[in-house]
């Protein structure tokens, strides 16, 4: 299960998806929206994706993780659109025979998402908004 969605992500759905008789461990990661970033008071995050390619890249990450670690199943769901403070923006679930593989594959997946999957977050903060990762110029302030 590798997808982007505009709806609230359901942790239980991902856990059910990776549940496997051969697994002795399920590791989950939940990325949540926090209310501050680099001194700014964050109001919400607004995510945008190139959805078809994002899902393809997420699936590619899953394949790569399967090559590197002895895991059974993986699920990654990333939210797009506005995400409020405390809400999950991404959930990853990994099952494996043994916990070490599940932990490492889960860590790998979140780190790779931040490098290669075409998803962007705009931070809406008190006083303006900013596309994260593009801070080479001035923040774009609301006119």
């Amino acid at each position: 299960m590798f997808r982007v969605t505009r709806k609230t992500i359901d942790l239980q759905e991902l856990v059910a998806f990776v549940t496997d008789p051969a697994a002795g461990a399920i590791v989950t990661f939940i990325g949540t929206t926090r209310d501050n970033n680099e001194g700014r008071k964050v109001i919400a995050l607004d995510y945008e994706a190139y959805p078809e390619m994002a899902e393809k890249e997420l699936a590619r990450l899953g394949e790569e993780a399967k090559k590197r670690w002895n895991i059974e199943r993986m699920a990654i769901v990333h939210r797009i659109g506005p995400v409020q403070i405390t809400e999950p923006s991404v959930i990853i679930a990994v099952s494996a025979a043994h916990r070490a593989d599940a932990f490492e594959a889960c860590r790998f997946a979140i780190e790779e998402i931040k490098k290669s999957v075409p998803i962007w977050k705009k931070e809406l903060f008190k006083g303006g908004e900013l596309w994260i990762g593009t801070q080479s110029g001035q923040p774009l302030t609301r006119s």
Partner: protein
Amino acid sequence: MKVKIKFFAILRERAGAGEITKEIREGCTVGELWQALKQEYPKLAPVEMRLLYAVNKNYVGADHVLKERDEVVFVPPVSGG
């Protein structure tokens, strides 16, 4: 020949469009297309961030040669998670 270009995130806002079609010459590379777009959309010109190029949903290098009806995306630094 024509290619489809999709803009996302900061580039969509700067271009003022999510999707355009553009006539290009035979043998045009994705890097050359970006240079041409910066002429056509002056607001894209100050974008100095490191861009990646995607053609038909695969990452490619700047010297990738475009074909008729390719879907081209200029990928600003990603920030998912």
